[in-house]
């Protein structure tokens, strides 16, 4: 109880500090701390799936994206907003907070829940993790849209590339660090990280884990090797790159259409085949998400970091 109170208080303090921070870099650093504290809170609430995702995507990858954005924006990000803008931001934040608080406080008691239905029908999916069953079977459409959004994000980021740089390597090539701490990390961590990612992907069917968390780790390992200059950033014109990014969502859509043809509903799985189909889609999505996330952090071709 005391620990929960401390975590909640720390989240509020760090959130305030993030908003009040003067520099963009400070704000991002605080935002990463905020994400890690938030994943603590999710663990305490008994939602380790969300905690893992929050730590990997919310704090880790979003943090890396925001750090990159802060570095690219440079001084422009440090300029304080005008008075009208400040008022608008304050109004927007207050509105969201009040709406969320009202939504939570106005929930009927007991809160509406679909958990019993999930528990009752989980056996048909062959999955042991109810979160995975919801994400891949009962609300598969949401997951499909989520993964498709990442493809759109990559296209949007790439469309910011200047014409003369188009087709070149994404982001900027990092200088090769032959020795020193970064080179050590880039040699030491990727084997372990890839192993952990495969484990998290595979165990996701029965325990907390899954494709997004695994993909975030894989993307981080690739980014580490790129930052140490051990691998060149991929050419955006490379065919394999585009195929991998699109393959996951495309396969998911194809399987959805197959369900529509054979079972009469989009994304319906044939009985008995649900688990193998889900696992194949999970693996393909992991590859797509990992590459998309890494490409987003590396940025469009031709920009100076």
């Amino acid at each position, binding site marked *: 109880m005391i620990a929960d109170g401390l975590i909640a208080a720390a989240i509020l303090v760090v959130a305030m500090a993030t908003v009040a921070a003067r520099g963009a870099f400070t704000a991002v650093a605080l935002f990463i701390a905020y994400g890690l504290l938030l994943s603590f809170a999710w663990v305490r609430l008994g939602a380790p799936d969300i905690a893992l995702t929050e730590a990997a995507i919310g704090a880790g990858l979003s943090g890396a994206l925001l750090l990159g954005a802060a570095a690219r924006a440079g001084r422009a990000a440090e300029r304080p907003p005008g008075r009208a803008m400040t008022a608008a931001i304050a109004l927007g934040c207050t509105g969201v907070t009040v709406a969320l608080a009202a939504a939570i406080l106005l929930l009927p008691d007991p809160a509406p829940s679909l958990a019993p239905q999930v528990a009752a029908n989980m056996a048909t999916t062959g999955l042991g993790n109810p979160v995975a069953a919801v994400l891949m079977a009962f609300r598969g459409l949401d997951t499909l849209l989520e993964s498709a959004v990442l493809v759109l994000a990559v296209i949007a980021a790439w469309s910011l590339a200047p014409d003369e740089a188009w087709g070149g390597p994404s982001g900027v090539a990092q200088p090769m660090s032959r020795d*020193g*701490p*970064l080179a*050590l*990390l880039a040699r*030491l*961590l990727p084997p*372990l990280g890839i192993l952990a990612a495969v484990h998290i992907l595979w165990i996701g069917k029965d325990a907390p884990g899954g494709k997004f968390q695994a993909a975030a780790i894989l993307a981080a390992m690739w980014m580490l090797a790129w930052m140490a200059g051990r691998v060149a950033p991929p050419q955006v014109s490379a065919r394999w790159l585009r195929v991998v990014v699109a393959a996951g969502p495309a396969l998911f859509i194809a399987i959805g259409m197959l369900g529509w043809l054979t079972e009469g509903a989009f994304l319906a799985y044939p009985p008995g085949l649900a688990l193998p189909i889900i696992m194949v889609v999970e693996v393909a999505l992991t590859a797509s998400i990992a590459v998309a996330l890494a490409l987003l952090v590396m940025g469009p071709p031709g920009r100076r970091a």
Partner: protein
Amino acid sequence: MSLLVDAASIAAILAGLVFFAAGTAGLLRFPDASSRLHALTKADHLGLGLIVLGLLPRADAVGGAPRLVAVWLLVLVSSAAAGPLLARLARRR
């Protein structure tokens, strides 16, 4: 026997907390980036090591104990690498 294990476990965790507190105090009070990093990484390594040591007898899941040790080793490697990186950056500024 279990009382002895519990006492050792609690002592190790408390000692770990002391190191974390000392590292945080150093981070807040030391004058320049290098010494702040020094306080942070050294104290965290020892503090986390002691806490992991204290938690080892309490790890119940299969493979829980090796996982705890793996967490400690990974933190050791990553902060041993991050510390010098930050220190180089701080010196260049």
